């Protein structure tokens, strides 16, 4: 019984440390995180496909709703990447970028990088011009910075990625 107690308490302590480190906001995030920890987490594929369809038709708010439904625990790096990308595409502008949306995108891409194995995430989707989380992160960070290049009138000819 004593040895069992040591194991049970060690597990409980590890769970508490994990909670403090990950700061989950919902019960779904807690259960999803535990499932991801043992490799049993699966996203809702139907909701993900719906999200992808909305994303490709530039319906970004609807896409994010579907992606959030697909990855309700926020544990899937690829889904988080697409959510970040949707913020990028929605916030991108010829004259200026929407800092609020870019900041949210940066938050999500950082989450995607944290979830990816060894922090390396590549999504092979021909519809995307930035296929790695690092490229997307750099683009979002550049959009949030104010630089002399922002006042270059030729900027209006740049293209959304």
């Amino acid at each position: 019984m004593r040895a069992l107690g040591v194991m049970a308490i060690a597990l409980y302590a590890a769970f508490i440390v994990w909670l403090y480190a990950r700061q989950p906001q919902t019960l779904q995030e807690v259960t999803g995180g535990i499932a991801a920890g043992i490799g049993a987490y699966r996203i809702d594929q139907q909701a993900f496909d719906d999200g992808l369809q909305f994303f490709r038709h530039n319906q970004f708010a609807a896409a994010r709703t579907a992606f959030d439904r697909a990855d309700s625990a926020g544990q899937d790096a690829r889904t988080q990447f697409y959510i970040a990308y949707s913020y990028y595409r929605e916030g991108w502008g010829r004259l200026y970028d929407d800092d609020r949306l870019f900041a949210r995108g940066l938050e999500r891409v950082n989450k995607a990088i944290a979830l990816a194995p060894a922090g390396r995430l590549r999504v092979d989707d021909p519809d995307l011009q930035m296929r790695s989380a690092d490229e997307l992160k750099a683009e979002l960070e550049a959009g949030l910075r104010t630089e002399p290049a922002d006042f270059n009138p030729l900027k209006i000819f740049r293209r959304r990625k």
Partner: protein
Amino acid sequence: MSPATEAFYLPAVFLTVALLGGVRVADRVMLLPPPLYALVLGLLLFGVLARTGTLALHRLMNSNRAAVANLNGLLVMLTTFLASAQVFNLVTPESGLPRLLFDVFFLVLLLNTLAAAPDRVRVLRSLVVIFGSAFVLKFIVLAALSDPAGGMLKRVLLVLLEGVTLGTLTQDVFHESTGYLAFFTLALFMIGLALLPSSTHDRSSSSLVARSS
């Protein structure tokens, strides 16, 4: 103390206190680990518990016990310390002048209790008063003052504190559930402390043995 209490119940109670002590509910749920100063206060409280016999360390770890029993004892000690630190984190205001005042008062109260070395029952009563008062001040008085909507209590306090700049007193506003959770956590902590193996039990059981022989 039964093996089950030592191996399961006490560490579980104190770990639960350590978990819930950092919960703050605002627009999102935050889990705040204890700051360094709370660790210092927790260590002082652990010292108070050991010095006053509220926690008999020799009953948890000694050379006559089996290794796994000593490990159980070590877990009780570690979780008691963590829970103590987290309880101070819980009842200390989050910022400003109140935080500084609470930190100083806790330090002085603990040093005073260490110096006075009261018995177990007095220590437990004293801790109920300390944590109870801190709870009322943080979760009722300061919370009322910090509430932007205000209420009857806030109006009364504003009259009483006329001339004081509230900017030094107001705190982050938390959801009401934080207070209820804090109350439950403090009650659980006190139950855990009351369940700890004490040297008072030692003395009473040895005197019973002496009488029967």
